């Protein structure tokens, strides 16, 4: 597994019911593309995060299929509707089977 994988998300603390909010996510990950070679000329095997999802109270906001062309430390920005108070859950799926999750509560007010 990749070392020091650390997800970061930015979610507003509060929102009005039904308001559209902007979410920003960043996760530190080398996203080894499988195209690069090491000093000895051997191909470095691919090791990337291949899927990212964001859910709010179990309902999908976005589900992204990721390929090696996504940059190191994958960043995503998108918008979500907040119908009620609840929790955003962000999940990243690694090639090696690891799953990284992060959640943030949001209140109405």
């Amino acid at each position, binding site marked *: 597994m990749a070392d020091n994988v650390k997800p970061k998300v930015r979610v507003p603390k509060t929102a009005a019911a039904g308001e559209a909010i902007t979410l920003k996510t960043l996760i530190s990950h080398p996203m080894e593309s499988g*195209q690069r*070679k090491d000093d000895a000329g051997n191909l470095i095997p691919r090791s990337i995060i291949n899927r990212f999802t964001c859910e709010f109270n179990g309902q999908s906001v*976005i589900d992204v299929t990721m*390929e090696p*062309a*996504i*940059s*190191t430390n994958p960043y995503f920005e998108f918008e979500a509707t907040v119908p009620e108070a609840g929790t955003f859950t962000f999940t990243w799926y690694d090639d090696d089977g690891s799953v990284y999750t992060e959640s943030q509560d949001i209140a109405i007010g």
Partner: protein
Amino acid sequence: MTITRRQTFMMALGASVAAAMPFRAFADASEDSIAAFTGGAEMGTEGLTLTAPEIAENGNTVPVEVSAPGAVSIMLLATGNPTPDAAIFNFGPLAASQTASTRIRLAKTQNVMAIAKMADGSFVQATQEVKVTIGGCGG
């Protein structure tokens, strides 16, 4: 051994075909991805916005934004990369807008392409050329 003019000509032809092959392979790979996503359907050009810089100094991280109101999913392709697929965004019921931004790698100057699948099953595409100063795929 003597080399005739005809042989020289044939050798040159062979070399130029060999040189052209990798580009052909890239184009085929993008077309395969597009066909897998659209099922070969016709694509319109209205209703999808692809925002990318005209010139990217560093191909390792090029900010790209796609926006297509009413889309179910948007595929992003870097047509000049060894593997052209970049990402597929699937928007769920709580997506406030069908907009997403991310950062992608570009191996060289090339066309970045986005294809949106609309709720009614039609497809829309947008393309923008990005000039890359330093490529982003290593090797």
